[in-house]
């Protein structure tokens, strides 16, 4: 092998960079984010799996429908419970604690939604 003095350190650097996530001290891996669920309500506006993957799409749909198309503020769940289609007055009515609900998963997955650029942040988070 020629050029050992340069190639071996370069290979070690390469392997080190590639395996960064392995030796990076990730915290407790088994610790999943546990968003606090509201105690008084058992049903959300859509099935749980849909809310997990697509709640942001739903919020965008509400915004477009209400602000741009003049849609209604009132929505109904599958069981017929009425709710307000609104982030602050709807979602946050049940999921009142942003830190314990929204932020748990968003921080875990490094998602920084820009809801609160315009909307008033709930007091707990201030």
């Amino acid at each position, binding site marked *: *092998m020629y050029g050992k003095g340069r190639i071996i350190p370069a290979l070690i650097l*390469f392997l080190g960079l590639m395996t960064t*996530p*392995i030796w990076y001290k990730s915290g407790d891996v088994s610790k999943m984010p546990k968003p606090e669920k509201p105690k008084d309500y058992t049903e959300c506006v859509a099935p749980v799996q849909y809310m997990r993957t697509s709640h*942001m799409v739903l*919020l965008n749909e509400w915004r477009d429908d209400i602000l741009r198309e003049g849609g209604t503020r009132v929505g109904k769940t599958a069981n017929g419970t009425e709710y307000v289609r609104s982030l602050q007055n709807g979602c946050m009515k049940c999921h009142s604690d942003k830190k314990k609900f929204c932020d748990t998963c968003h921080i875990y997955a490094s998602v*920084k939604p820009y809801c609160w650029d315009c909307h008033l942040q709930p007091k707990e988070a201030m």
Partner: protein
Amino acid sequence: MRIMSPLIAVLALVLLALVAAQGPGGQALVGIILPYLAFAVFLGGVVSRVVNWSSSPVPFRIPTTCGQANSLPWIKQNKLDCPSTKAGVIGRMLLEVLLFRSLFRNTKAEMHEGPKLVYGSSKFLWLFALLFHYCFLVIILRHLRLFMDPIPSFVAALEFGDGFMQIGLPVFYQTDAIFLGALAFLFLRRVMLTNIRYISLPADYFPLFLIMGIAITGILMRYFLRVDVVAIKQLTLGLATLSPPAITGQIGTIFFVHIFLVCALLIYFPFSKLMHLAGVFMSPTRNMINNSRMVRHINPWNDPKIKPHSYASYEDEFREFMVGADIPVEKELPAQPAEEDAAKVAE
């Protein structure tokens, strides 16, 4: 046909992943076992290719001289394109690796009426190659959010910059679009330009299709089909910390297609032209100092018992025979003995 077989191969990989993702056993295979296998093949393959390359000696200075070499003091040297110092080579390599300088010199040749051959500058390949590679880098670094916890701040900064336009939800990443556009250019270039199409092989199309497949499944996963990111991060973080969890079945099928194609790319990587990742650093035409007129380079396997034999001493040794065979010599045979011979004959 050279374009169809790689396309079919990539589609077959997608199909295979779709089938495997149907059962929990297949999901564990694609989501846990295959990534480890692929990563090991990738690391081992790259290292062994580099070690293999480095076992070839490069005894002579063979840098490509793209400018004026170091010469007389009043002739200006091109220090980057014909470097005679270590610093010059480092500068040349940095520009090559970070900015693809030799691709910047890409030219095109066109035949015009006359017939007249015309050469022109062609910067599009350089531009799109640069966009492609940097977008790929940003995309890979962005993915670190799934493999690290807590997430390093530079990853968050990259995500913020990449989603700066705040289009749609989930926020649209500019690199996704630029990446696909650059890939499309690199592909169309091979298809549309007849001379490039002529020299394109399945090994050129396959990585393009495979990377396109990875990009498209990733885009589908983020913007259209949408998956449970928290469940995926649980799996990927488990992979990264060597403690993979049991797959719960809440992860969408599209994720398994995506990770399957990524694994295929990792396995294919060390055995393909994609090894230019390491090759660019090892190319002797770029990383050697052009100092063969200042430093004597000795071939490492030369037998020390064999002494240098200059032309002058060679001629001294064989002059008689050379003259006899009418080979021109620099120094003629001494005239004296010839006259003595003639005198002897006369006697």
